[in-house]
């Protein structure tokens, strides 16, 4: 028994080290006063962050990425709300297979989606642009949003909707006043997931970007220059903080939503 307990403790410890040690190295080297990323550390500096501030191309890439991520999050969530509601509330022919096909991009290799989208878009005579990246990102983000929102809609007692209708309310107002507020935590989670996926998606953005790179495409391009590596560490540190911030925000919204409806918190991240 004792041996078994030790094995699992070590297993968990090693797992966590592999998971978080690389992420912890990011801020360590971001503040290291040396253009070579290696131990021993040379001293404390913030010059890599200052370098980020003065790199115009980076700012463009960040703006592009944010624009794509926000647009993708909004449209993926919108489509997912429609799909999740339809699949949980109505019976229609071939519902299972239709939903299966909608969810498929979640498991398809992104490189295949990227290549095939590129071929189709070029064949149709579209210019590659931020718009084409958005199309690709909506395609891959929507299944994740559907997965999140389906459970939100599934947890909704159907008689709430009937009660609202029964009390004389119209269908649209029922959606606005009853359904929407109750699936709100799911919608926020869906927006954040789609935003995060889009923000750090590389393959599709790489294939579909015209002359305007996204942040991951920009970072990849900079890796060719070893002297830029420390400033990329600084950039990585900022992205890490942003991710943690979003995660905390998502969980806060989720918990607040649960509290409002009186459901005991179960699961969650933090």
């Amino acid at each position, binding site marked *: 028994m004792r041996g078994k307990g030790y094995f699992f403790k070590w297993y968990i410890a090693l797992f966590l080290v592999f998971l978080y040690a690389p992420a912890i190295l990011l801020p360590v080297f971001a503040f290291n006063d040396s253009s070579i990323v290696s131990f021993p550390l040379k001293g404390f500096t913030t010059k890599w962050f200052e370098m980020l501030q003065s790199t115009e191309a980076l700012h463009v890439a960040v703006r592009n990425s944010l624009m794509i991520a926000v647009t993708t999050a909004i449209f993926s969530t919108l489509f997912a709300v429609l799909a999740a509601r339809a699949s949980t509330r109505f019976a229609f022919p071939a519902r299972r297979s239709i939903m299966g096909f909608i969810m498929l991009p979640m498991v398809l290799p992104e490189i295949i989606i990227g290549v095939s989208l590129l071929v189709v878009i070029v064949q149709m005579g579209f210019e590659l642009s931020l718009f084409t990246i958005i199309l690709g990102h909506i395609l891959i983000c929507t299944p994740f949003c559907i997965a999140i929102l389906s459970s939100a809609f599934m947890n909704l007692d159907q*008689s709430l909707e*009937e*009660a*609202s*209708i*029964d*009390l*004389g309310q119209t269908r649209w107002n029922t959606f606005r006043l009853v359904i929407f507020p109750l699936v709100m935590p799911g919608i926020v989670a869906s927006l954040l997931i789609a935003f995060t996926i889009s923000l750090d998606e590389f393959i599709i953005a790489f294939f579909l970007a015209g002359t305007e790179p996204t942040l991951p495409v920009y970072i990849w391009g900079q890796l060719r220059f070893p002297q830029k590596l420390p400033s990329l560490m600084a950039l990585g540190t900022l992205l890490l903080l942003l991710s943690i911030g979003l995660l905390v925000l998502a969980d806060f919204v989720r918990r607040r939503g649960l509290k409002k409806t*009186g*459901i005991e918190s179960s699961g969650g991240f933090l």
Partner: protein
Amino acid sequence: MTQPIIQLSGVDKFYGDFQALSQIDLDIRTGEFFSLLGPSGCGKTTLLRSIAGFETPSVGSLHIDGKSMDRVPANKRPTNMVFQSYAIFPHMSVAQNVAYGLKARGLPKAEIHERVSEAIAMVGLQGFDSRASHALSGGQRQRVALARALVLKPRVLLLDEPLSALDKKMREQMQSELRRLQRAVGITFVLVTHDQEEALTMSDRIAVMFDGKIAQVATPQTLYGKPSSRRVGNFIGMMNFFDAKVLSTSGETVEVDVQSFGTVTLPLSQAPGGVEGCQSVGIRPEMLTILAEGRTAEREIEAVVSEVFYYGDMTYYDVNLPQKDAPVTVTMRNTAGRKVLAAGDTARVGWSPVSLLLLQ
């Protein structure tokens, strides 16, 4: 008599090949407490939901207050419903829940406020106005659901198994309260339940349903005392059945040969479903008596006690009668000085022909 508030005629409901309702003809009177009673899957909830407008009958017509309900959606019907799960909006307070329907009608704020307070007081939830609805107990949720529906002053209040989620004590309390409320507001209540006791204690009239059909519509007393068929008699309370053969009918009486009891002559009123095709006779357990020493009854029969179930106020005996394989249940009140028998004792069972029912 005034015109019925709800009239159903020839209503069928199909789900694919499955027939949920079959040839429903039913009049529900204005101001009565009406119950739809039956085992689960008998179609009672489908019928209630058809009245509310959540299901559309495949065939047949539904009139409420003399108006056809064809193509009238649920939010335009003069009915309101109390759902089995209560369906209280969890993100709204008690007062917001109760005000929901009034706001949908676009009434002025002052009137909404007044009617909401009135409705909340009527169901005994004074002081709970701003309470979050998820912080309420089952019984309180039920009251909110009632207030939310009654505040709209519907012509008919529909209740879908409203007491099934409550514990026994709460249920009994809510039964009398529902009855009191119904009398106070004078609104027609239509209650769906599978609990026969609940239906008997609360209703003015009851419709018993089996397999999508209405088996009998009657007052609680008639339903218990004169069930129209063996199935109804067995569903409402307990009943012992004996094989029987009709020998002859003459004027107001019928002569029947009954297993164990021999030949008896019954008034025709003891065959509430008609004499035609009757093959069994039923008797309620409390209509049989285990006779104490020295007591006599109109008719007597020798029996052997096979099982004794002691309930405190009552004792249920399973006894074996001659020429009958299945035991017969006899219930006795445990009045002062009455001896409780044990399994294996012999007993004289007293009965009377007028308590026998000739059933199909």
